[in-house]
């Protein structure tokens, strides 16, 4: 019998599969309001650290909780990390001539971030 049949479709569509880890006791490494810099690293494997924020400075805007860490899970490993919304000005990302009052928010995992003193 086929793996995907019409009978299983409604359950698949309405159920989903959250990547949130609800039973983790992993402490958050960064707090809302922390000034942070994204690491300038260049993995050759899967990553959600978008190239355009590498080396850029921003502020932690939200702590989303603990999630499966895509960089590891994509390669069939197991791992989870805190995920944060980090806020950057357009000027920080794109340089002079770009707005200091328009912003990009992007979701970053612990391993992508270093704290600025």
């Amino acid at each position, binding site marked *: 019998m086929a793996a995907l049949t019409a009978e299983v479709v409604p359950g698949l569509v309405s159920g989903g599969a959250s990547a949130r880890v609800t039973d983790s006791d992993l402490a958050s490494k960064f707090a809302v309001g922390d000034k942070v810099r994204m690491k300038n690293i260049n993995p050759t494997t899967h990553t959600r650290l*978008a190239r355009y924020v590498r080396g850029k400075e921003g502020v932690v805007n939200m702590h989303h909780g603990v999630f499966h860490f895509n960089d590891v899970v994509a390669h069939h490993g197991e791992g989870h990390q805190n995920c944060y919304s980090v806020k950057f000005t357009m000027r920080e990302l794109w340089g002079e001539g770009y707005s200091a009052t328009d912003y990009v928010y992007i979701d970053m995992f612990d391993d992508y971030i270093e704290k600025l003193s």
Partner: protein
Amino acid sequence: MPHDHHYDPLPDTELRVRALESILVEKDLVDPAAIDLLVETYETKIGPRNGAKVVAKAWTDPEYKKRLMENASAAIAELGFSGVQGEDMVVVENTEGVHNVVVCTLCSCYPWPTLGLPPVWYKAAPYRSRVVRDPRSVLLEFGTELPASTEIHVWDSNAELRYLVLPQRPSGTDGMSVEQLEELVSRDSMIGVKLADMPA
């Protein structure tokens, strides 16, 4: 003598989809009825009218709006919308001074239970690369002109959170019913490239 056939060749994407479908069916991994049901579900049941119900309820029910801003996934599920690609939702609210717009720069992440499947432009490189750099120009191309004093906040849904924009309720809608308000809420206004429609 050239062939006198007037068949247009199938576009590459369609050819690829047909090839994938036939091999999955031949290997008995997928029942064709499942594909038909998936297509029907996303054509007729799951789409931006769901999101419009969320927005209109938030406009008319302050307690609901409070829950929506605090725990979007749970508040959206109250209306029966949950599931694949909407497991962990965040709602961002447009105000007098702030306009939000959503993108996935890495691929095409999008909140399916409330908006359905993403439009082609949302998945295309020009939108994804330009809206994080020059959102004001991109919005103008959608006919959306914002005052210079309005901050634009671009949300890149690059991880597992999915974002829905709560547009501002248009003026002149005080006496309108929830059902009438839903009609003013377009898909594009919940992505953030447009405002909610003005009443006729």
